[in-house]
């Protein structure tokens, strides 16, 4: 049983770490604000989720710890999309245009907005 839990933890933690690093590389390397935002999303959802899940398998009967981990996860999943959305909106209102290869499509989207 413990071996199974440990195995699950290893998988979740390693995958989570992988997504964290991928997200950060994207944050550093992508060309403009909106694509960077996409990379940041990977960290918040997959990275944080997997790492916290990985930790949840290790609580070892301390239910209060499990509860705290769950509330952290709930909190992150609730707040970070909200703040990202507000951030994107604020950036768009302040003349931060997305960088697109196709300028026409860009205009169209702006008109639809």
């Amino acid at each position, binding site marked *: 049983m413990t071996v199974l839990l440990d195995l699950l*933890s290893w998988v979740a933690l390693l995958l989570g770490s992988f997504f964290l*690093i991928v997200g950060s590389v994207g944050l550093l390397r992508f060309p403009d604000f909106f694509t960077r935002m996409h990379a940041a999303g990977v960290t918040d959802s997959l990275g944080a989720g997997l790492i*916290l899940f990985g930790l949840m398998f290790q609580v070892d009967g301390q239910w209060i*710890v499990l509860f705290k981990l769950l509330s952290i996860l709930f909190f992150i999943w609730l*707040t970070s999309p909200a*703040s990202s959305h507000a*951030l994107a909106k604020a950036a768009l209102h302040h003349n931060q245009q997305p960088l697109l290869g196709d300028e026409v499509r860009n205009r169209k989207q702006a008109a639809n907005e």
Partner: protein
Amino acid sequence: MGISMFSVTTVAILVSMILAITRAFLGPSLYDRVLAINVLGTKTVLLIAVLGFLMGRPEFLDIALLYALINFISIIGLMRFFEYSSSRQEEK
């Protein structure tokens, strides 16, 4: 102690923190910096949680929870006052 899963995760989080903080230093526009800070905050929460397990005292997760909360509040504060003062500067 050997390689525990927590130490591997700690190293990964540290590496990704270094990358994110670089974006916060460079970030051409202010929004890039805010985004980097948001990501950095999430990573800090994770690092606190993992460190709790690494040191064998996971009952200190309260700090991680607090940080998740403070991160959200300060991002809102940044956006609010930035929007306001840039709109005032435009009027002038």
